[in-house]
């Protein structure tokens, strides 16, 4: 059997800078080849070369041979590249949802691709089946916005499959997925590979790679530093769950908290959630995407005003943010999930961070600046980087700046909403270190995350939320090892991909996806 894709000494340069250099890998039919590496290491650049595609001002070199045709040679993309697109290589971009044309019914696009590539066969139905979607006319008549996020991802997959390519390139398919959805993805991909498709997987999610790939190529700064079977990846250390330690009076209490989207309780999101955090304690909140975690956090932070129930800080009633006193404001701080939106585009990041200390702790300008720079440095963000406007910072850097902004208030309760999603292991470690120190000084933490291992490692008590209700809670050790609720069990089991093969095949019906109800 021959590899369907051969990449030999691929190079990509943009002016002076070298983006990718001397990269070699093969893709075999029926197998998954994974390109792994930190953000910016050249994964996307390498993969797009299979289509002869490159960014503005980027030059390609080396050789890329796809299905016996040379698409890239020493002089860059060849004329054969156009023939490869779709028919041989299908590329799924990082956020497939946005790759669907909002103006066209999904059927129209699928049929169009069918006419283009396989006019005589009925590939659409087949592709939909492979992507686990119904193929009835009603579904085909819907527009992309009438599907849930998970379904949209599968539609993009169906589009790629309609071309019936020999190679499927998947760019970061697991970003933002909860563990159950991620598990579904694994089994979908396995099925496709079994059908003889060659898959190129680009990811920094090592667990996913471990579960799927038969070849792994590790990139770093545009160069291959290691390649071989999955064994080249170090086995992830099992994070030991932290035990319950500190005791004392609860610092923050929420009692039968219910929240809704619209006034007077219409469109409820949360239903009677109780919650208590002690000083120096960390409470972890997990749950599937869209279960209401952020809403709960925003209620506590005083940002979500449409709620009923009681919030107590030190046994004193806690109003919404607008009505909080300076002290109450300082004592509870929130770190945004979508960090980029929470920074003002027009001011340097360090100034925005320092402002907290000025406004909430009355520090002078220079003192505040110094403290901001120090905190950012601890988190691995240099002063030079932080002096830029937010648009020039990477997602990971911005995430840490947002944490610093909240920490500068010296809060008593710190709410962290998925603050490590854009971080690599090193960054995560720096964050955990800072938070542990805060905990030791008596700060209470509310930690929201979908990485169950990390949650278990940081928190003293875990809440599992589903559709706005707490369905299970307890010490992380208990919740992780003896989950009582069915969903918790599935979450835990699904989280273990790459560690140990799942003991039973996951359930793939779309009703398990809380976001899969078609929206109109």
């Amino acid at each position, binding site marked *: 059997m021959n590899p369907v894709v051969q990449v030999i000494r691929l190079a990509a340069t943009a002016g002076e800078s070298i983006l990718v250099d001397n990269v070699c890998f093969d893709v075999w039919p029926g197998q998954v080849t994974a390109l792994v590496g930190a953000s910016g290491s050249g994964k996307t650049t390498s993969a797009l070369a299979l*289509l002869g*595609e490159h960014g503005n001002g980027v030059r390609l070199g080396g050789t890329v041979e796809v299905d016996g045709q040379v698409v890239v040679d020493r002089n860059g993309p060849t004329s054969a590249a156009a023939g490869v*697109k*779709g*028919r041989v290589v*299908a*590329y799924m*971009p990082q*956020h497939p949802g*946005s*790759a*669907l*044309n*909002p*103006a*066209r019914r999904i059927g*129209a*696009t699928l049929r*169009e*691709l069918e006419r*283009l*590539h396989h006019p005589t066969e009925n590939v659409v139905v087949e592709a939909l089946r492979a992507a686990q979607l119904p193929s009835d006319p009603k579904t085909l008549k819907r*527009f*992309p*916005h*009438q599907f849930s996020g998970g379904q949209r991802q599968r539609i*993009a997959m169906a*589009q*790629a499959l309609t*071309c019936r390519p020999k190679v499927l390139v998947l760019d970061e398919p697991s970003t933002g997925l909860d563990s159950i959805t991620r598990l579904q993805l694994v089994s979908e991909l396995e099925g496709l590979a079994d059908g003889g498709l060659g898959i190129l997987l680009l990811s920094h999610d090592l667990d996913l790679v471990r579960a799927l790939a038969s070849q792994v190529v590790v990139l770093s700064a545009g160069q291959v530093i290691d390649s071989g079977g999955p064994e080249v990846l170090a086995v992830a250390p099992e994070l030991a769950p932290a035990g319950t330690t500190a005791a004392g009076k609860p610092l923050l209490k929420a009692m039968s908290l219910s929240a809704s989207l619209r006034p007077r309780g219409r469109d409820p999101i949360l239903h009677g959630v109780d919650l208590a955090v002690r000083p120096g304690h960390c409470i972890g909140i997990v749950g599937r995407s869209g279960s209401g975690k952020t809403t709960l956090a925003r209620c506590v932070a005083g940002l979500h005003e449409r709620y009923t129930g009681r919030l107590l800080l030190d046994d004193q009633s806690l109003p919404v943010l607008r009505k909080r006193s300076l002290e109450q404001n300082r004592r509870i701080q929130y770190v945004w999930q979508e960090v980029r939106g929470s920074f003002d585009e027009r001011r340097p990041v360090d100034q925005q961070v320092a402002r907290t200390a000025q406004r909430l702790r009355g520090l002078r300008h220079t003192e505040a600046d110094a403290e901001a720079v120090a905190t950012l440095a601890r988190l691995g963000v240099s002063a030079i980087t932080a002096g830029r406007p937010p648009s020039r910072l990477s997602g990971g850097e911005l995430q840490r700046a947002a944490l610093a902004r909240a920490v500068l208030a010296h809060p008593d309760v710190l709410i962290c909403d998925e603050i490590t999603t854009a971080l690599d292991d090193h960054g995560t470690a720096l964050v955990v270190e800072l938070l542990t120190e805060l905990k030791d000084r008596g700060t209470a933490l509310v930690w929201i995350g979908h990485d169950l291992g990390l949650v278990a490692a940081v928190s003293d008590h875990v809440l599992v939320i589903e559709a706005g209700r707490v369905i299970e809670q307890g010490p992380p050790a208990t919740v992780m090892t003896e989950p009582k609720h069915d969903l918790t069990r599935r979450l835990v089991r699904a989280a273990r991909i790459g560690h140990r093969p799942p003991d039973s095949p996951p359930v793939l019906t779309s009703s398990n996806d809380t976001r899969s109800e078609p929206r109109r």
Partner: protein
Amino acid sequence: MRSYAAQRAALALVQLAVLSVLVFVLTALLPGDAAEMRFTETLTPERISRMRTQLGLDQPALERFGHWFGNVLTGDLGTSLISGGPVADIIRHSVGATLVLTLATLAVVVPLAVVLGIVMGTRENGRLDRAITSVTLALSAIPDFVIAVLLVAVFSLKLGWLPATWVGGDLLASPALLILPVAVLFGRTVCLLSRQVRAGTISALQAEYVVQARRLGVPRRQLLLRHVLPNAAVPGVQELARTGDTLLGGVLVVEAIFAIPGFATALVDGVETRDVPVVQGLTLVLAVAALVINLAADLVCNRLVPRTELLR
């Protein structure tokens, strides 16, 4: 969807009712009344006041408005205070010319603007893009009455190629009558529209879904027609709906210069002669048209790109 339509319709009814009151107040604020406007050197003041009584203008304003409003609810727009003829007739007479003019303009402008916009958008900042932008920009910068005066001077009076006025002309016999008026209205509209289409094309071309379609092997022509055009048309359609009012301002100038007996002229005449029922009727028709056009534009946009949010 149905509740949306009902909501829009209810809002529209309220808008129309408030608008009627507003127009009535506006015209009531004007000095003089219709009887006075009929004053000529041969009518004595005593006869004028008798006419005022006959026209019912001596009744309190509120009563007159109530009377008018009640009639409108039954579908009767009343009679003109000046000519004594039914307002509906006046509207029917004047709407035709303006409609022909506007439709003819749109028939020229819309296809051209779409083509130009797409050409410009696909060649962003290229030489062609710059050339078209400069030309349309320059066209749109010339006030319509200046264009009109110059066009008439050159093409009708100097060269004698085209008719300069609708007086004595018959549109059916000589469609050339339309050329100059349309040419005047053409410049600004084509500029506004083509630039919206251009912007739409550029953003659609950069959109992830177009890039993705190209990656899946969709050829360029098909890409432009099926994937780019519908998305690029949305800002254009919205602009078109908004242009209505501006276009009407331009139409007045054109109607005045080419002596076209149209809507805008009738409206201004109505105001000048204090013919309140005529002004009310014309405004009502205009407002209904504006509301319908906006609703249609929203629906079309929603049809083109279904995610467009309907309410605002």
